[in-house]
């Protein structure tokens, strides 16, 4: 059996976006986004422009999964943060339970500031996400309960 789906309601989505917007401002970052450990993007905030955030989310999750594998080989549970610094653009990733908080920043900010602000906001994001995970799929007015074979076939027509 596959996992129970994650359901993100509209209000929760906007709450998460608001938290990310605050972090983006306080960390003076270009883009902030939240990804789950399986590589699904949950929300993004900032100057996304043409950036392929779907691919970035998948690669971030792959990166964290690979480094967690390395951590376990040397006796650590996981590495809670990862940073990649480029000439102009840099990425900081913080692991918050099953969430990955990703901050893209340039020379207007610094790794120290991004780390500090990410840490300060981690608990708030964590409790918001716990609430999302507690939502019961059966209680939701699921649009898929009534899905028909014809609906599914129409996707491939």
């Amino acid at each position, binding site marked *: *059996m596959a996992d129970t789906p*994650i359901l993100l309601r509209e209000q929760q*989505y906007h709450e998460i976006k608001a938290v990310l917007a605050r972090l983006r401002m306080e960390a003076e970052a270009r883009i902030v986004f939240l990804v789950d450990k399986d590589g*699904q993007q949950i929300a993004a905030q900032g100057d996304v422009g043409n950036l*392929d955030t779907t691919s970035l989310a998948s690669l971030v999750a792959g990166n964290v999964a690979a480094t967690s594998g390395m951590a376990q080989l040397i006796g650590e549970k996981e590495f809670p943060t990862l940073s990649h610094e480029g000439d102009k653009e840099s990425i900081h990733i913080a692991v918050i339970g099953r969430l990955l908080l990703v901050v893209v920043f340039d020379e207007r900010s610094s790794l120290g500031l991004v780390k500090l602000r990410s840490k300060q906001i981690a608990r708030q994001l964590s409790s918001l996400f716990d609430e999302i995970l507690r939502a019961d799929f059966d209680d939701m007015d*699921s649009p898929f309960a009534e899905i028909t074979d014809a609906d*599914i076939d129409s996707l491939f027509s």
Partner: protein
Amino acid sequence: MTFINYASREINCKIVYYGPGLCGKTTNLQHIFDATAPQAKGKLISLATETDRTLFFDFMPLELGTVRGFKTRFHLYTVPGQVFYDASRKLILKGVDGVVFVADSQEERMDANIESLYNLEENLQTQGYDLMKIPYVLQLNKRDLPNILPVVDLKTELQRKGEPVVEAVASTGSGVFDTLKAVAKQVLTELRKG
């Protein structure tokens, strides 16, 4: 793990193509990528070695259309087939919603198919899944080659639970979308169950 966003009205599901080295997993994704309209797909990301063997994974997001007002997006992944990349394969199965096993129909690859299938069952278990319960399709690839086994023999050895079996030639695209459709249908049907 399926992710349903009510705010952006999107469903995202993860499908993993599994199978032995050189069976055609990346070729499946490459064909889907080539045959899909630009607005329905993202980039095809390939983390490959210099000799084009998959090192970590290939990834492409694919938007199939709208169901009940929700955009359905499938995230397609392949695993590295070579035996020694097992740690990577385990990681990629995390959060999977459906699996396609790409078998190489050539006689000399039968042992590799069987080994890879056992490896899939084991790695799914490690992640808390049961092959017998997860949406799953068996693709018999390379049906155009001269030294292939009959379909009935491959099914006897490789079919696990009456899953759909699709004959394919991924290099020409034959059977590629039928395979994707067969697994996507099962994933969406699971959503109906809740």
